[in-house]
């Protein structure tokens, strides 16, 4: 055990955690909107729209996140046309490519979580709203969405933790996030166990925080 290395690498790894958290929060925020959008499409009665939303979530959940990042970062740059548009400003940055990939990935999982939450809402609640003369729009925004969010909290908590682990793949497209810096320190010092303990400890601490935050929210918004 090389305690000195653990102590000296801790601030470096902590600095890299900022990038991990940035990637995580950006993709989660965008991901919720993508997820909500596709969850609503999934509930649409039109078969074509329904199929499209299902296809999206099937493809993004059935392929590894690594492939998705590589397609976006290495693949899209190949299209000549894209290079001439303003999109290229975003797509040439590994940082934004990673966020796009994470957003689409977490969006697919979030849409599934929200869809099942919408479907488990008791029809009686919606009927009660209707019989009180509340418009469909308000029923959706003020009744269905809040209930669905509460229903999906436990599953979404898992998704946040999965996504936090997913951000480690940003290191494969040259980003120096927590895993990227950990790999760099390992490959220069050849002390994998020490670095693993420190970096893994930081990840575990974040998992712990997220887990407890979700538990707190579940309690706060419980129906009882």
């Amino acid at each position, binding site marked *: 055990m090389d305690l000195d290395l653990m102590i000296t690498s801790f601030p470096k790894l902590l600095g890299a955690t900022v990038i991990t958290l940035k990637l995580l929060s950006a993709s989660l925020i965008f991901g919720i909107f993508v997820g909500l959008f596709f969850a609503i499409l999934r509930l649409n009665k039109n078969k074509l729209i329904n199929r499209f939303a299902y296809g999206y979530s099937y493809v993004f959940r059935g392929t590894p996140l690594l492939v998705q990042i590589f397609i976006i970062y290495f693949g899209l740059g190949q299209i000549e046309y894209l290079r001439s548009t303003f999109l290229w400003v975003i797509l040439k940055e590994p940082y934004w490519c990673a966020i796009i990939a994470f957003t689409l990935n977490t969006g697919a999982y979030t849409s599934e979580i929200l869809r099942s939450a919408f479907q488990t809402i008791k029809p009686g609640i919606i009927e009660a709203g209707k019989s009180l003369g509340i418009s469909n729009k308000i029923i959706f925004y003020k009744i269905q969405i809040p209930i669905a969010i509460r229903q999906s909290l436990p599953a979404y908590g898992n998704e946040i933790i999965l996504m936090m682990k997913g951000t480690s793949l940003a290191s494969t497209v040259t980003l120096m996030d927590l895993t990227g810096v950990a790999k760099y320190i390992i490959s220069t010092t050849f002390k994998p166990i020490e670095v*693993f303990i420190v970096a893994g400890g930081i990840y575990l601490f974040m998992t712990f925080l997220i887990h407890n935050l979700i538990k707190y929210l579940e309690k706060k918004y419980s129906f009882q």
Partner: protein
Amino acid sequence: MELLVFGKTGWGDELFYATLMTIAVSITAMLVGFFFALIFTPLKLSKYKSLNLIGNFYTTVIRGVPELLVIYLFFFGGSGAIMYVASIFGYYEYIEINAFITGSIAIGIISGAYSTEVFRGAIQSIDKGQFEAAKVLGIGKFTQFYKIVLPQMLRLAIPNLSNVWQITLKDTSLISVTGLVEIMRQSYIAAGSTRDPLFFYSFAAVLYLLLTYLSMKLINRLEVKYSRGY
């Protein structure tokens, strides 16, 4: 399409073998995972607090740390650890472990943590009366496990195990960082030499989709088989 021709001019055969490699690593990792689950599930269900702690430590750490970090630990630390053990026995030459073995063990340990949780949940959901009935009938612990617990547990565990399989299959793509030539690595090589990353990575995505689709079909059959009588 020319790029996918089998033989020297295309990448068809390379990608085909890479797909077989992905399947081989996934199955090996899944089996390694079962082995770990076999050790840690009893620990988690044990009535001794200290054993519980070991079991919980394993599943919490592995499920809370990114897969890539675990793979780096094994990739960089694996041969070091083996060489250290060998040095105790007086062997000081450099030992390099095969990327297949490192990868399978790394992914296997990850998959094992998920399998452990699945088995624990399945065993816990078996009615207590079943154990008591077995005890009353004087059935030994061993027979009790194989003839009573296991068949019921499998029925409950298969849907969740199919999730673990999907996770494991997708996690094998991460082994490409160690240089093992599976789908992802082969696509990387092909993309680099043809300068057509969009095509090859998209094709890799299709291969993964195909694998997940086919394995789901297969698992559904198993599910039907183990649910007979219900």
